[in-house]
């Protein structure tokens, strides 16, 4: 069992999401950086599809009622383990390295030093009830468990076996500048011929309104060639949708399944946006560069 002593600003249960239900209006959801959560799971000996926690910006404090292995990936943060009884002994930990904790230990994850999100895997995985094949919290539709609150208790599964003997994990450092590869979207024709070169020729700033649904960007407005409303159509992860104000929005894991604003481009890999702080600079490039 995990006891949530301090939930933080937004800590959610996430796994690899619930693909395959978009035709019923169910978003895919899942960790914003699925590879980072998979790595954390591997470090504690879990199946890659096990559920862990996605911790946003302000960190969290957790107590484990039984001995566990934990691993953190993603945004760097101060990690401190307090051994039982409470306050008896403190030991620092590291993002990117597995930690063995005795029963009763408290794990303190500090605020992200860079980036936004840190993923935590626990041996055995978090076994809240699965909904449509996934334990992920979907912040758009409300499926899955609600975001963590202080005092919550989360069930843990039985570990498959001991964690692999790993001392060190090599992960790419968070980039200073977010460079995204974008391809022309299905509704490029709804924009002026200059729209894609404006998107690729100007730096954009991540807006504070960004969340798990999408990264809202501020910068050069993308001019429309066709006025009016687009009939609703299916949306993919990474779709760059442009509302009437011309400011692009890149859809992330909790994006709606259909939408009525035209999609000017599609980003190949959105995982860098999981670490995009408000005010961060984003540049777009064609696939050839």
């Amino acid at each position, binding site marked *: 069992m995990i006891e949530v002593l301090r939930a933080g600003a937004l800590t959610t249960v996430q796994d690899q999401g619930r693909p395959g239900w978009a035709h019923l*209006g169910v978003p895919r959801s899942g960790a914003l950086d699925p590879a980072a959560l998979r790595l954390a799971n591997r470090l504690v000996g879990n199946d890659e599809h096990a559920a862990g926690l996605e911790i946003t910006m302000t960190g969290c404090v957790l107590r484990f009622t039984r001995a566990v292995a934990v691993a953190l990936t993603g945004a760097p943060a101060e990690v401190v383990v307090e051994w039982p009884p409470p306050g008896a002994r403190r030991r620092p930990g590291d993002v990117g390295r597995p930690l063995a904790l005795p029963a009763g230990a408290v794990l303190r994850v500090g605020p992200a030093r860079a980036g936004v999100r840190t993923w935590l895997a626990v041996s055995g995985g978090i076994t809240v009830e699965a909904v449509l094949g996934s334990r992920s919290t979907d912040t758009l539709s409300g499926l899955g468990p609600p975001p963590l609150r202080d005092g919550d208790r989360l069930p843990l599964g039985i570990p498959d076996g001991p964690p692999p003997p790993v001392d060190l994990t090599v992960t790419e450092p968070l980039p200073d500048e977010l460079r995204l590869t974008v*391809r022309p979207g299905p509704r490029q024709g709804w924009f002026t011929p200059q729209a894609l070169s404006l998107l690729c020729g100007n730096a954009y700033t991540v807006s504070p309104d960004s969340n798990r649904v999408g990264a809202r960007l501020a910068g050069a407005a993308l001019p429309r060639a066709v006025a009016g409303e687009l009939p609703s159509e299916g949306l*993919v992860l990474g779709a760059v949708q442009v509302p009437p104000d011309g400011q692009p929005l890149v859809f992330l894991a909790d994006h709606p399944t*259909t*939408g009525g604003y035209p999609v000017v481009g599609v980003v190949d890999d959105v995982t860098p946006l999981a670490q995009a702080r408000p005010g961060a600079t984003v540049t777009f490039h064609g696939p050839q560069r």
Partner: protein
Amino acid sequence: MRIRPVGTHALLLDCDDPEQVEAWRAELWHRRASGELTATEIVPGAVTVLLDGVPDPEAAAARIAGWRPRAADSGAATEEVRVPTVYDGEDLPRVAAHWDTDVPAVVDRLRRTEFRVAFCGFAPGFAYLTGLPPELAVPRLATPRTRVPAGSVALAGPYAGIYPAASPGGWLLVGRTDLPLFDVRADPPARLTPGTRVRLVDAP
């Protein structure tokens, strides 16, 4: 029908009309079930069908271009869901004004219409129902309600829809139903899936 690439793993089929969407939706689901097509998602829209999670979109597009969907099923073979409806929505007079008629005539029209689920979206289990003629399209509220109760039967544009759960919404309310529309333990979880025929019958 025209096929457009969408990113690295998706295709969008641009159809001529909603009937062609339904024909392609049914054809693609059938081809996927028979193993001729690999796609994680096949998502109908108003005049499109999205295929996502396609390993080789270029090859898939070439194959799809050679397929001819059968005409959309006229309905005899597909399931009909009867939705017990109480017609007491507060926007009935507004709909009557748009349709240039009175409230009993609006209710009679809705009662007699054979609807079909064109596509889902907005929320899990929310189905866009077609069947009303385009000239009866109604505008959304200028200011959406902050909370529309679960089970509300409503109209917007050329569509009818039923809110599976309470949510904000700008559709015009014409009635309500107690029929559960989305249940994660049911298979399928949505009562109204694309292609389903729907009748808004009087609640007993």
